[in-house]
């Protein structure tokens, strides 16, 4: 009821100045803080005090029983709420971006993958006494794929178990890099990933809150790749323990590393901070600062991909919509003003920058690798030594 009438109240199709920075819900004001507290509390209860929310799980027991045959765990409740919230906010997306076919299609895709692949299929697998598995959840995002209980469970489950094991490995080692080569990170982060799906639907009102500063970019680079390294080291320990039977290496127990990763990254960073921080820090905090899969995809996108966002610099009026709404905190306008292609490793290819551009300057494209990266030196930039630059160019 709140969302649907916006078809009328928001006026004609298209993006317009709608006072988003003046609305208490979207400009880090009191409503935003309430939402923040509510979301963070919800995640803390869900992850760390599930025994307090038993009544909530009772409400969804009948649905859980009809799908998997089991009573609802707190994770079923979470998955169901996730799908419901995404569906409702997807309606909002359809209305807001109804002028943009790309956004309609993309929202539908991400909704489909969440409801079918992350919710229905795994629950139905359990009904048939197979392991619960989300086929689109790739390692290292699915950080417990190589844990001993997971490997044991898959190996013990016959043909399907083995298929899942091989699928998981092929997905991470083959499908992911090949798809990023052809389409960029966007095929996963904006069209398939569940976290991305929530960020694009529930997080849409909060895109403009992502930090655009250079400081944030510097932190982001260290943090997101650091988490990837952590995940890889942890998996190394896990596999070593699994195959050798030795429960640790260099005086560090594998179980301890798994526990620390599971708590700090899996629960606090991805869950509590990842979604809880939407109303204050923007919709992609996890994706930008923590997701190890994003780091992996980003490396491929930056160095070996056909994806770029082309900019028709001559049409740019420097309105700044693109930078404002970039949920990854990329200063898109700077690239557009110079007519440079955007191939940033953090760009998830959501396409919103292109959707909000009043002049059609930006276009998400896949093209030949040659000449994809076309930087422009700024002669009077802060970090440029003018004499070096001039002499260097004269020498060539």
């Amino acid at each position, binding site marked *: 009821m709140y*969302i649907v009438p916006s078809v*009328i109240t928001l006026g004609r199709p298209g993006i317009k100045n709608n006072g988003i920075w003046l609305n208490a819900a979207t400009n880090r004001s009191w409503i935003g803080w309430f939402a923040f507290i509510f979301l963070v509390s919800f995640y803390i209860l869900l992850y760390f005090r599930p*025994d307090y929310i038993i*009544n909530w799980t009772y*409400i969804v027991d009948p649905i859980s029983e009809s799908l998997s045959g089991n009573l609802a765990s707190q994770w079923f409740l979470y998955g169901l709420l996730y799908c419901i919230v995404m569906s409702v906010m997807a309606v909002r997306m359809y209305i807001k971006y109804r002028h943009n076919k790309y956004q309609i299609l993309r929202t539908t895709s991400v909704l489909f993958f969440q409801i079918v692949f992350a919710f229905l299929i795994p629950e139905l697998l359990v009904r048939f006494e197979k392991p619960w598995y989300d086929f689109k959840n790739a390692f290292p995002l699915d950080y417990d794929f190589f844990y001993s209980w997971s490997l044991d469970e898959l190996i013990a489950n016959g043909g399907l178990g083995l298929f899942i094991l091989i699928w998981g490995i092929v997905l991470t080692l083959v499908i992911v890099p090949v798809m990023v080569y052809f389409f960029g990170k966007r095929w996963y982060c904006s069209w398939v990933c569940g976290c991305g799906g929530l960020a694009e639907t529930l997080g849409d009102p909060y895109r403009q809150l992502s930090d655009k500063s250079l400081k944030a970019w510097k932190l982001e680079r260290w943090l997101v790749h650091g988490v990837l390294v952590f995940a890889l080291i942890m998996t190394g320990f896990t596999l070593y323990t699994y195959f050798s039977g030795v429960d640790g290496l260099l005086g560090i127990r594998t179980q301890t590393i798994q526990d620390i990763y599971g708590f700090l990254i899996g629960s606090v960073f991805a869950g509590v901070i990842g979604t809880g921080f939407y109303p204050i820090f923007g919709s992609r905090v996890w994706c930008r600062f923590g997701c190890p899969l994003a780091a992996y995809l980003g490396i491929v996108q930056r160095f070996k991909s056909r994806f770029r966002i082309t900019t028709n610099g001559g049409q740019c009026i420097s309105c700044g919509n693109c930078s404002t709404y970039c949920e990854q905190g990329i200063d898109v306008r700077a690239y557009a003003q110079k007519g440079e292609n955007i191939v940033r490793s953090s760009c998830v290819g959501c396409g919103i920058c292109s959707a909000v551009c009043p002049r059609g300057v930006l276009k998400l494209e896949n093209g030949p690798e040659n000449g994809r990266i076309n930087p422009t030196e700024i002669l009077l930039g802060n970090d440029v030594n003018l004499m070096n630059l001039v002499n260097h160019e004269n020498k060539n």
Partner: protein
Amino acid sequence: MKSIQNIGLALFLVGLMIFTSFIFFGKYEVTPHILDETLTSKGIKSELFINNLNTNVLGKEFSNSFSFSSAITKSLEQTNEAHKLNSEWDKVIWDKPHSFVYEIAKKSGSGFVKENKGLFWWLTFWAWNPWCAYVYSTICDYFRSSRN
């Protein structure tokens, strides 16, 4: 139009507050049957823990999930500490305390939410749905007529 939006928002917030309030309701009581089931399915060997539960938890009715949870987690922590001191590693219960309590609580709970699962499902999530459909159709008509 704006008033429809505001009504919708109000309904949503009311529903959310009702939903949130549920965590404060419900009674929890562990029957011998539930205790048996849990102990066998988890393979718990610690007599200390079982005795502790028998005295502090069995047959008692707890008026909310917080006191229920803290009663069990306290016994869990005490007995685990004692067993760890004596290096009786197979008697230590390695489960995460609150996940352990979750499983018992799920079976031990009672109250109007548990009794009326279906009703509350419809009330909290779907009461506003028919309104949405009605509102949407009204809007489509309005849209169509305003364009002509």
